[in-house]
C-alpha cells in the first residue's frame, strides 16, 4: 500500500464536529424546543402576492409567518442554529402556449408541474437534480391542479407550472433524533403552500378554473404536556413539525370551497389509535380530512384577497 508519508492527511471519511457536554446541557434541552403558541385551530399568517416575476404569464410568492420562537430567536439570537423555519416559495406559470410541432394532438391542456427545493432551502443541502421526494410533490401538485383547471378550453396547448421552494419546513425539530413516528411531515406543509401559490399564479395568468383551489394541513399530535403514558392526541391545524415532539398522522388536501370538493388528498401515518376529544366520535382519518379542509378554507380567504389585489393592480395600470 502506498502510504503518503509526507503529508498529514485527514481521515478518509468525514468527521463530525466535537460536541461538548457543557453545550449539550445548555443547548439541546427540551426547553429550547419551539413551542406552539397558537390555538389548535389557529392558522399561521400567510403572505401571498401575485405578479412579482414579470417574464412569466403568471406568478406568485408565498410566505408563512415565522413561528414565535423563530421570531424571538431572530431578534435575540442565542445560537447560530435557528429553532425552526418558515415556508417561502415562488411559483411561476408559463402558458398557455402551443405544444411543440412534434407532439401528438391533445384535446385538453397539457399540464406540467415541476417542484424544486433550492439547494439552500432545507437544513440538509438538496442537489440540483430533483430527488424522488420532489418529483412526488410535483405529481401531487399536478393532481390537485388538474381537477381545478378547465382543461378542454385550451386544446393543443401546454401549461408549465414551476415552484421553487426557497425555505422549506423542517420535518422535525432539528435537535431531536428521528424516531419511530418520523416521516417527512414538512413536505406536507410544502405541498399545501405549493397548491395555494400555484392557484394564485394560475389566476394571475388568467386561466379558467372551476374555483380557486387552496391547500390545507391538519395533523394528529401526541400531547406530551401530561406525564400520563397513554397521552391524548389532539387535532391541530397548520402544524409546524418543529413545534411538536411526535406527529402521529397528518393530512393535506387541495380543496375547492365553492364546490365543496377535494381534488388532492394525501394522508399518512396511523390515525386509528387516536382518541379525539370527548363527544367527538369521528374516526381519526375523517377528523383529519375535516381539519385539513378547515385549514384550506382559511387559506382560501387569503388567496381570494391576493387575487383581488392583483386584479385591482391590473385595472389601475390600464
Amino acid at each position, binding site marked *: 500500500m502506498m502510504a503518503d508519508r509526507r503529508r498529514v492527511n485527514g481521515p478518509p471519511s468525514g468527521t*463530525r464536529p466535537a*460536541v461538548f*457536554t457543557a453545550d*449539550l446541557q445548555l443547548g*439541546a434541552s427540551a426547553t429550547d424546543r419551539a413551542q406552539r403558541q397558537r390555538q389548535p385551530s389557529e392558522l399561521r399568517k400567510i403572505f401571498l402576492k401575485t405578479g412579482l416575476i414579470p417574464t412569466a404569464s403568471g406568478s406568485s410568492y408565498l410566505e408563512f409567518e415565522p413561528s414565535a420562537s423563530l421570531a424571538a430567536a431572530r431578534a435575540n439570537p442565542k445560537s447560530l442554529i435557528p429553532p425552526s423555519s418558515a415556508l417561502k416559495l415562488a411559483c411561476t406559470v408559463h402558458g398557455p402556449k402551443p*405544444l411543440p410541432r412534434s407532439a*401528438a394532438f*391533445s*384535446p*385538453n391542456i*397539457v399540464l*406540467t408541474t415541476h417542484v424544486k427545493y433550492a439547494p439552500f432551502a432545507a437544513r440538509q443541502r438538496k442537489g440540483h437534480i*430533483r430527488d*424522488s421526494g420532489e*418529483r*412526488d410533490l*410535483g*405529481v*401531487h401538485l*399536478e*393532481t390537485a391542479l*388538474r*381537477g*381545478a383547471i*378547465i*382543461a*378542454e378550453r385550451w386544446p393543443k396547448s401546454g401549461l408549465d407550472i414551476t415552484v421553487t421552494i426557497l425555505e422549506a419546513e423542517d420535518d422535525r425539530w432539528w*435537535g*431531536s*433524533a*428521528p*424516531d*419511530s413516528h*418520523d*416521516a*417527512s411531515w414538512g413536505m406536507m406543509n410544502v405541498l399545501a403552500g405549493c397548491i395555494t401559490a400555484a392557484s394564485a399564479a394560475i389566476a394571475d395568468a388568467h386561466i379558467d378554473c*372551476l374555483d380557486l383551489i387552496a391547500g390545507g394541513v391538519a395533523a394528529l399530535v401526541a400531547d406530551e404536556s401530561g406525564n400520563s403514558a397513554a397521552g391524548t392526541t389532539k387535532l391541530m391545524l397548520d402544524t409546524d413539525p418543529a413545534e411538536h415532539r411526535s406527529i402521529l398522522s397528518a393530512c393535506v388536501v387541495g*380543496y*375547492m370551497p365553492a*364546490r*365543496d*370538493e*377535494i*381534488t*388532492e*388528498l*394525501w*394522508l*399518512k*401515518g*396511523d*390515525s*386509528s*389509535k387516536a382518541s379525539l376529544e370527548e363527544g367527538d366520535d369521528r374516526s*381519526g*382519518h*375523517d377528523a383529519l*380530512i*375535516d381539519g385539513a*379542509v378547515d385549514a384550506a378554507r382559511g387559506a382560501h380567504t387569503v388567496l381570494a384577497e391576493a387575487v383581488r389585489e392583483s386584479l385591482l393592480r391590473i385595472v389601475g395600470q390600464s
Partner: protein
Amino acid sequence: MSNQRQASSASQVPHLSPAELSYLYTSLSLPKTPIRPDGRSPTQFRPLTAETNILPGTNGSARIGFADGTQAIVGVKAEVEKTILSNETLASERGAGPEPTDQEGSTTAAVGGHGSWVQMSIEIPGFRDDDALPVFLSEMMRESLVGAVGTDENSDMTGGLKGRLVINKRWHWRLYIDVLLLSQPLAYPLPLLSLTTHLALLSTKLPKLKSQGEEDPFFDDDWAVAEYLYPRSSPSTGAKISSSSSRPSFVRPPVTLLVISVGENIIFDPNREEIAVADAVLAISITRDTQAGHLRLLSIRTVDPPSRLTQPGVPNSENVNMLGAVAPTDDIAVLNPVTGEEEVPGVWRPRRGGAKRSVISEMVKTVLKKGGVGEEVLEGLEGVEVS
C-alpha cells in the same frame, strides 16, 4: 412523448371513444348494481396466480400474474450497514456511560429506525426511472411500509418495519425492494405491484443473529434457522420463531388497494377500461397488527383520474352534421347529482373537479369495515403458502 407527459400519476390516456366511455360509465354507475365489463362484483379482485421464493439470490421474492397476462416480480435484498449516530444519541450514551449494558432491550427499542433504510425501485416497461408513474408508485408503497408502527409492545415489531431493521445501536439492515413489471402496464399497475411486494416481504428471511448487544453483528450461516422479517404465526412455522420472540406477532406488511368511485358505486381493483371512467381514484394502504383483525389505515392518496384527459362527446343538438335532424328537446342537459355537472345522458363529458368528502369517507369505510374488502384481501394473501 406527449402521451408520456400526459400519463402522470395515472396510467396512460385511455384510447376509448366518447361513446365507449359513456357506455362504460352508464353501466358502472347503475345504482346499487354496477355491471363491470368482466362480470365481477364491485369488490371482487381479478383472479391471480402467486408464488414465492422464486429467486434464490434474494432474501425474499414473489411473483404474481393476473389472468390478463400482466406479471410482476419482486426481489428483496438486505445488507448490513453502519448506523450514522446523531449527536443526541451520542450524548445520551455518554450520560449513561458507566453502565452501558443495564437495559439492553429498552435502548435498542429507543433507537428507532430510519425511513431511508428501505429503498424501493420500480421498473415499468416503457417508462423511465424518473417518470411520474414509477416515482409516485414507489413513494406511495414505501411510505406505507415505513410508516407502519407496531403497537404490540412485546413483539419484535414494536417500531414497525423500521424498528425491525435495527440490529443494535451501531448497525442496521438496509432493505432493497426491487419491483419489476414484466408486461406492459395494461391496467394501472398499483394493485399488482402492491400485492407482489407484500408477498415478497412475507417470504423475506434475515440470517439469525449470533452476536449479542452492541458487538459487531455476527450471523449464523445456517440458512435454515434464518428468521422471517415479518415473524410468522401460522402453525407450520410457529415453532421456529417461538424461540426468538416471546409470542407470535401478527404484524403484516401493508397492502395498497386501488379504489374508484363511479356515480354512487365504489369499485375495487379496476381494470384499464373501468379506471378510464372513474370519478375519483384513491389508493388506500392498510395493514393488520393484531390477531383480532383490527385493520389500520396507513395512508390515502388521490390518484389523478384518467377520465380528466379523455375527449368529450358532442350531443346531437350541438352537432352541425345533425342540424335539423333532431328535435331540440331530444337531449336536454340534466344535472348529474354525483358530479354536480350538467350533462346530456349518454354523451361523455370528461370529469372536472374533485371528489366530495362523503364519497371519500364512504370509500375508506368500505375498505376498513369489519368483514370488508381489506380483511378479505389480507386473508387471501395469508393463504398463499410461503415456503
